[in-house]
């Protein structure tokens, strides 16, 4: 009846072993409940996507319906394939935006972490303060600025502001501090490497796991961002998915046929992000495993 986990036998009190097993079961149960609760709306939207307009309001929420293919066909053909155009737009904004943002954050984080210059703390303070500003405040001034240079309403108008990432810079600074030892840098400099080369070939790979985190956060943030594209874009063909679905909502008030489209659109729109998360989970798992092995 002794536990197989290491606990020096002579110190085990009679109370200890049974509570450990109980704790593990209870803990597992609570986790599973939490997990299921988190999956409920996602499950709902996937099931609801299969319902036809009539079934949507008349059948039990989790009973599958018969209209999945119809709904998929409807959303594909709506506006001549506009929904999938929106998906591509989202990919563009989020992919390119997050890449650029990660690169710049990595550079800035590295610079803040590994170099001393005057005003460094001030810059870092600015970065943190940037997190506090609500997006709504910035939306119209940003629009006016971009309009002045003639970029409003173009893809740039959404891409350029998306590059800012104060939290990413903060994270990169932390990662640079902890993941890049100074000795390595010194050695590389003594070997005659140029700063940019050192950054590209040494620092970036070392920060990679952190960079993946930053990329993911920014990708999700841009993908989910609604207000910025709403202000900047008036051409529907350039909308990202979130804005496109919102415009369905705005129109859907008078047309109940649109509700299934909204639902199946929502279901489809969360799938790429979920896929991305699942894929990038591996990086975290490696990190966490390593952390566990580290002691």
């Amino acid at each position: 009846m002794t536990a197989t986990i290491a606990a020096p036998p002579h110190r085990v009190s009679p109370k200890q072993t049974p509570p450990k097993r109980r704790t593990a079961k209870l803990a597992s149960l609570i986790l599973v409940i939490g997990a299921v609760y988190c999956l409920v709306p996602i499950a709902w939207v996937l099931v609801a996507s299969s319902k036809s307009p009539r079934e949507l309001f008349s059948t039990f929420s989790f009973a599958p319906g018969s209209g999945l293919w119809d709904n998929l066909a409807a959303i594909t053909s709506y506006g001549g394939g506009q929904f999938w155009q929106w998906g591509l737009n989202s990919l563009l904004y989020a992919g390119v935006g997050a890449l650029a943002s990660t690169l710049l954050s990595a550079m800035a984080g590295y610079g803040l972490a590994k170099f001393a210059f005057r005003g460094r703390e001030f810059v870092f303070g600015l970065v943190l303060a940037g997190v506090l500003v609500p997006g709504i405040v910035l939306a119209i001034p940003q629009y006016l600025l971009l309009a002045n240079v003639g970029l409003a309403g173009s893809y740039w108008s959404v891409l350029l502001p998306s590059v800012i990432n104060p939290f990413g810079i903060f994270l990169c600074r932390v990662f640079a501090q902890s993941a890049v030892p100074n000795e390595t840098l010194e050695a590389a400099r003594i070997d005659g490497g140029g700063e940019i080369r050192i950054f590209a070939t040494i620092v970036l790979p070392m920060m990679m796991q952190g960079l993946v985190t930053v990329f993911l956060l920014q990708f999700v943030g841009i993908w989910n961002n609604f207000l910025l594209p709403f202000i900047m874009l008036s051409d529907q063909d350039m909308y990202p998915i979130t804005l496109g679905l919102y415009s369905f909502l705005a129109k859907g008030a008078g047309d109940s046929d649109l509700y299934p489209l909204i639902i199946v659109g929502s279901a489809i729109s969360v799938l790429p992000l979920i896929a991305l998360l699942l894929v990038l989970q591996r990086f975290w798992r490696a990190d966490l495993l390593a952390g566990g092995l580290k002691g």
Partner: protein
Amino acid sequence: MSALFRSSRSRRSARVIAAIAAGTVVFGIAGCAAGSESSDGPVELEFWTYSVKAADPAAVAIIDKYEEDNPGITIKLSEVGGTAETSSKLLAADRADEAPDVVQVEYRALPSLVVSGAVRDITDDVADVRGNVEENIWALNSLGDQVYGVPQDIGPMMLTYRTDLFEQYGVAVPTTWEEYAQAAETIHTLDPSVYIASFSPTQFEFFAAQAAQAGSEWWSTDGESWTVGIADDASLQTADYWQDLVDRDLVTVEPLLTPEWNAKVNDGKILSWAAAAWAPSVIYSVAPDTAGEWASVPLPQWNAGDSSVPFLGGSTYLVPEKSAHPEEAAAFASWLGATDEGSELLLTLDLYPAGNGGREATLSNDPPRLMPEQADFYEIADQVIEDTTIPMVWGPNVNVAQGVFGDALSQAALDKASFRDVYIATQEAVIEDLEKSGYTVE
């Protein structure tokens, strides 16, 4: 619902190429825009609209027709959203010194857009087509004597109700609001889960129309200063009327066109909708199974024997001040809304056109799909327009009023508090805002 399998964009590119080719040969704009200054080369008009949808083949047909008749002009459709979204985007675009060319908004949004300086005065541009639309409709599109928009459609107020269920509950069609209240009571007593209608506190324009029908003028002006009458006696009486119905639980308090509301309409728990001639197509889109059980009649009156009503809803095409092609834009808007040809085409979009030609055409139209057996629907609507002698003047701060009123009335309906106070508070807020902006208020 339509399914468009060909990409509308590739069709447009093909058209642009054709237009450019045509444009190098033909100067100016042919057709009904004669007399306006023409620009060289092809012109693309950006058209913000929620009624003329790119996904709708009937709408595309209209655009194609205009482009055919006017080589050198291409129209780019953009569905920005409803009136609220469209207004705010137009203002943002105007600030940035760029703007689309034709913009559709509901009538009540026009004055505040005009005083922002964002809208072009098109009084001269529409001089040619002035006679094609009744003056009482032009009034909705004007501030003072200046015209700022070309009307697209109008909403003659009507009551749309369930004929079968009214009969089942033994209720006659009400001709006065008092009869309406009695009907509400009868229905709800017989079946407490059924209501004659819903009460939607955020439908600002509806309450304004109610008050206007009772003789109140929420905004009025002599050209120099404003008078605000939201809390005048006639208006407060309408407040009392609805207070009574809500207090006695004879109407259900909820927003319109939510899944809940749609379900109740489908299930026969909401029996009528006091709105306008566009109501049947809206009801049909959310409750198609109930087709055949509805009819529309003129709106009940406050005083027996009266017949006048205001308009409810409807929209107009305005030309932004900063449009790059104002004359061409005004020409297109005039064609679409104020010529016989254009307004007849608007009928294919299930709108009730404001132009005489379109209105004439409705008389030979089949009745709406919701009430296929009501052959006289359009005659009744037409008669209502003749009877629409009540003007609706909207002030420059309708948005402020709408926000304050909607929030306060929602809260009052929830708390069963005084509706009068809501109207009074709204009036105070509106006057304060007008004065803060620098207007003179009587």
